């Protein structure tokens, strides 16, 4: 018999990896103790010895990539990204959490606070309130800038619980928007200097924010009007003014536009052997999220099938116990991500994701211009 190289034997598919290696490359296998094959073999020459090039350039990526939207509401969305690498999916997640701008209360000018909530705790709570306004209509404010109508939003809070009244709960609906700027006067050293001029306040608004087209119909209010800010007993009063500015989640979490954003890989549950009758009943009962179903085959036999693999939470109940690992394989598809974005309300989640992708492009551009 003529000598043939092992790689040239007729049953080996040419130009493609053999199925067990393809499985290793594209699926994470979740064994009972730990997942294996988790690394992404990205190096384009990794399988060069077998004559397979797995490097995918831009055009191949564009052909393979797909997006499917599963759920989209005003505040959250769930969508699938297929054909993308975890490095880029993670970059989008990081940008969504830390590098998208929002407006949040930063400076709180407290005129009177006789409540049991300390000044700084009250200021911290006010900072965390999400404000329903598009941050791209505003500019960043640096330390030397004066607060004006283009970089600040001013709110007022005045709550008083009269003596004899029951305890009062101060909710965010008591936060009033001041479109004309601050009303608190700056104490000047020379009160008799120029009585005719307008008294100086903490902000210098040249025109009312209500006159701008975006705000004339929709006042700027917090996203939810029932967030509890403080509780006042009889005789206690809070009078303060809060200035909101634009910032990034990197600086402080109050400026993060998402309550959170996360992704998980698509679960793939495969039955390696036929699971029948009592074993099938046992399997269906074991799974807490009902991934498996019973299918009635002829002659009264029952067979287990995988009905909802997407619901799998990797609790590994189905492979606990003797011999179950031989029958059920739990896997994750390495390039299929189920992304969930929950917005706090400033911008809808699909706009947030588009902005995040734009920011990644800007970063690349910045480095390219630096290199040239």
């Amino acid at each position: 018999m003529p000598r043939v190289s092992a790689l040239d034997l007729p049953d080996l598919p040419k130009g493609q990896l053999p199925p067990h290696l393809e499985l290793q490359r594209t699926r994470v296998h979740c064994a009972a103790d730990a997942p294996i094959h988790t690394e992404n073999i990205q190096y384009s020459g990794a399988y060069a010895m077998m004559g397979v090039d797995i490097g995918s350039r831009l055009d191949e990526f564009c052909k393979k990539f797909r997006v499917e939207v599963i759920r989209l509401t005003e505040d959250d969305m769930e969508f699938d990204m297929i054909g993308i690498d975890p490095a880029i999916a993670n970059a989008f997640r990081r940008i969504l959490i830390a590098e998208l701008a929002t407006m949040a209360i930063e400076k709180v000018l407290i005129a009177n606070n006789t409540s049991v909530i300390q000044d700084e705790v009250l200021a911290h709570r006010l900072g965390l309130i999400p404000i329903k306004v598009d941050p791209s209509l505003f500019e960043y404010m640096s330390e030397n800038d004066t607060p004006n109508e283009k970089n600040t939003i001013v709110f007022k809070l005045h709550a008083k619980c009269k003596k004899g009244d029951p305890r009062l709960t101060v909710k965010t609906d008591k936060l009033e928007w001041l479109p004309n700027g601050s009303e608190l006067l700056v104490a000047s050293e020379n009160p008799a200097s120029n009585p005719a001029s307008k008294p100086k306040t903490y902000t210098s608004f040249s025109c009312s924010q209500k006159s701008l087209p975006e705000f004339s119909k929709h006042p700027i209010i917090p996203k939810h009007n029932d967030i509890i800010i403080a509780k006042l007993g009889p005789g206690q009063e809070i009078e303060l003014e809060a200035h909101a500015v634009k910032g990034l989640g990197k600086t402080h979490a109050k400026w993060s536009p998402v309550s959170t954003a996360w992704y998980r890989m698509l679960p793939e549950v495969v039955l390696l052997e036929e699971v029948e009758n009592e074993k099938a009943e046992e399997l269906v009962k074991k799974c807490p999220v009902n991934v498996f179903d019973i299918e009635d085959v002829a002659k009264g036999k029952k067979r287990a099938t995988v009905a909802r693999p997407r619901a799998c939470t990797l609790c590994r109940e189905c492979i606990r116990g003797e011999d179950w690992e031989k029958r059920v394989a739990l896997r994750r598809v390495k390039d299929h991500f189920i992304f969930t974005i929950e917005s706090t309300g400033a911008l809808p989640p699909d706009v947030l994701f588009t902005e995040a992708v734009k920011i990644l492009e800007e970063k690349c551009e910045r480095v390219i211009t630096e290199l040239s």
Partner: protein
Amino acid sequence: MELGSSDKTKATFSLADEDHTLANSVRFALNQDPRVTFCGYSIPHPSDARVNIRVQTTGDPAKEVLKDALQDLMGMSQHVRATFDKAVVDFKTSEPVKP
């Protein structure tokens, strides 16, 4: 900022104001390029926002290869954006958005 000796095929690029977000994505894009023999990134100290990206190639200048990888990454992001926008529009026309 590029640091490398007279040999243009190997260089370390030090980027300021960057972190894992860009560096890991660029490393992935570099790996896809067949001209690259070695690529990696490191963060010298977590408190400084500075990233060092090391590129070694099979003959092309490392700067050009890095630029090509960044262009690829930009192209990928643009494609992601276009596909995502189209998918959202399709979804919205097929079902009304529930508040």
